[in-house]
């Protein structure tokens, strides 16, 4: 089937089988390999992308379902001014180790801060609870999101 998706601001037209998972279209057809696959059961969130601004697991959506949608992947987080506050925060607070869960974590965090610019620790832990990290124990991921929230509040500088 022919589908049109906007990914990170660029329009793409793809011919995909109905059964092709969105994550495979993103990784395989579009070559955007920052979106990862970590499980088979919608459990881990490594494949998280934003579809029309909402974080979802792209392994549990068919690419044909994204026809006409705007998708943001990790490759779309960096802005004209450089790395986003969330990206900077993950590095500044050592919120990543192996980096495999990181794109998903950053996308849910970005969506969280969009909705709630001043989240509590509980808000952050709740928001990222659909994403699994096997390395960090989450402590520094929480700090990374707090760093990004503070940076956004202070106009780009760490708070």
């Amino acid at each position, binding site marked *: 089937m022919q589908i049109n998706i906007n990914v990170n601001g660029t329009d793409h037209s793809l011919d995909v089988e109905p059964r092709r998972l969105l994550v495979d279209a993103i990784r395989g057809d579009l070559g955007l390999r920052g979106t990862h696959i970590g499980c088979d059961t919608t459990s881990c969130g490594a494949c998280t992308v934003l579809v029309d601004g909402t974080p979802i697991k792209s392994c549990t959506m068919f690419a044909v379902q994204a026809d006409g949608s705007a998708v943001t992947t990790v490759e779309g987080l960096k802005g004209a001014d450089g790395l986003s506050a969330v990206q900077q925060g993950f590095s500044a607070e050592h919120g990543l180790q192996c980096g495999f869960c990181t794109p998903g974590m950053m996308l849910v965090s970005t969506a969280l801060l969009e909705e709630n610019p001043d989240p509590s620790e509980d808000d952050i*832990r709740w928001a990222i609870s659909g994403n699994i990290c096997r390395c960090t124990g989450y402590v520094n991921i929480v700090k990374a999101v707090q760093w990004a929230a503070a940076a956004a509040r202070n106009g780009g500088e760490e708070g």
Partner: protein
Amino acid sequence: MQTTTHHQPTTSPEIGGVGHSIPRVEDARFVQGAGNYLDDVNLPGMLHMAILRSPVAHANLVSIDSSAAMELDGVLAVVTGELMAAHNLAWMPTLSGDTQAVLATDKVRYQGQEVACVIATDRYIAEDALRLIDVEYEELEPITNPQRSLEADAPLIRTDKEDVTDNVSFTWEAGDQAATDAAFARASKVVSLETHYPRSHPSPLETCGIVADVNPATGQATIYMTSQAPHAHRTLFALVAGLPEQNIRIISPDIGGGFGNKVPIYPGYVVATAASLLIGLPVKWVESRTENLISTGFGRDYYMTGSLALDDDGRILGLRTDLLADQGAFYSDAQPTKFRAGLFHIVTGSYDFAAAHVTAKGAFTNKAPGGVAYRCSFRVTEASYLIERLIQNAAYEIGMDPAEFRRINFIQPDQFPYTSPTGFIYDSGDYETAMQKAMDMVGYDELRAEQAAAREEGRLVGIGMASFTEVVGAGPAHTYDIAGLKMFDSAELRVHPTGKAILKLGVKTQGQGHETTFAQIVAEELGIPATDIAVMHGDTDNTPYGLGTYASRSTPVGGGATAMVARKLRDKARKIAAHLLEASPEDLEWEPGKFSVAGSPDASVTIQDIAFAAYTNHPEDEEAGLEGVHYYNPPNMTYPFGTYIVVVDLDSDTGVWTVRRMVAVDDCGVRINPMIVDGQIHGGLTEGFAKANMQWITFDDDGNCIGSNFMDYLVPTAWETPRFELGETVTPSPHHPIGAKGVGESATVGSPAAFVNAVIDAVAHLGVRNIDMPVLPDRVWKAIQNA
């Protein structure tokens, strides 16, 4: 060695040597989604492999009909054991001296075992084709526990082995039986514990995989593989496939977590490589999560009994343990040859007593093979768990607070180096200082008072502790080898004319941050800013030979190699500096980044000046260049330690327990990058919590794996994971070049006992002394009901 609260850096922040929490250089690519993991490797013409796995645990393989699968459009080949056998590849050696089936030829020995592989143009098609392969099995009795495995009438699992008549995979013994018997004979009290440390799986978020690219014209095999030990794997590949070793290049790209899961060689690697060789195109295989959980290297699964002999004053006289390992169908995990049960070096823990006797037996079962993966330093985890659980129970038995009981039994700082009753030499330690710090942080005495008051009100609060000693950094060549390969490690360092350096390592990061930390070691030794040093690893053609990263050995061994090669270069730099300053080398003084003439501080040259001179103006009696390699053979293992304290609240109506506090004081010697060390500890503590609370793999009576995906194998999210409070003490390793000890596994080794001890402590007044992990609420509730 003197214990301090913190290591003060000796280099400036600009240099960023040891002790500076500099940001990781790896992060730039990872936060932009620009890492290069195995599944990101795509080559022209690449084919995809999928594996058909046995649905049953134990069965004779009667027939395989792959004709329908072959007819599917896009399928190039269906590889079976028969085809592999024709190339003498149906079996492969393991890293622990056993052999393992690549594809089953005679029978299947566990659910999930590899039976056939489909090679197709697309993974979706390959998966479709798997469903078209018809396999006939003749089922045999599945052996699902090691107790049954050792019974006389149990069916033989390893019918492939000539002269094997039972299901015993190994026996191991350490310590002094007579001395231990004598200690128990004079004991006034004996405290015993029988417990199971359940099977757990590392399940890194990235599963295992390979892209095998064998050029049929040249015979050159370029193999991209999720490998924690690429050099050792290349050697094994050469031995398995009969390929000349110089024709094999293993590239381990960015690894999405390893934790020991990516140490063994898996059958899929061998089949993909053989398929690429036969077809002449690259072949990719990436595990699904289910494949990862049901077939690859697991950890633990030890049935343990232990007893402590005590005197009237509460002093420990001796330890006796007997252990039974559920090994799975093959002995396939990486394992130092001389320590078949894993490294039970520290089963006597942080405690000073004279006699111990340890026996262990491994049994084959119809389960996935493995046993030593998962942040455990070759099964130190089980040993630490057993002794720390025993210690708490012993304290209860003699009516002493568990902290006080530890205090009177600790090995004292002046006893190091300390020879343990099982014959290992602890390098350094100060256990009481670490414990006291943890107790102060958590407010131990107040908590004990609160606990007593809560019991009066009918509330259950538990305070659990573990004062663990770990052993990492395998290891000295006289004692440690894997498959004959001595467990040294290596570093190669070149400083370029502009003073920028490249460091190449035999170890391989899976997220630990080697590209940052190892640059900091060079920065410490040469004064070159860490940010001026590129670190390469994971490519066998471009790095010196090493045994790889597992068992927390990178810093103790690879870190030692890095410091030593940097010192070699510094020695040469001194000669070049002397040449430049027209002084005698002995008259030069070193400070980070610069040599100066003693007494004339203005007469100095920087390391950058020296590097330039090494290529432009070197002394006539020296070779040009500033480059070296060092193969580091550590004189001993290192022994990190610490005290963890967990506070839980327990709902007696349901058995549900929640962690209120978790304080972790770690002493891993000198910390190279404290930020990264804390991150390692956070991750390890989470694993300890997970195993204590929810994360295990079990099997039903038919040998079906329960825990075959993340819906059944539960790994904690941010919501359940406790909030950790960290503290540190610093007792340098006396034999490591920079005093570091290794930290990747300490928290996983030490923390499970702290969590379980906390739950037991909440119900100890009812007489409860053991609940097996995972400490599920139904187990807790039943323990209360039965108390």
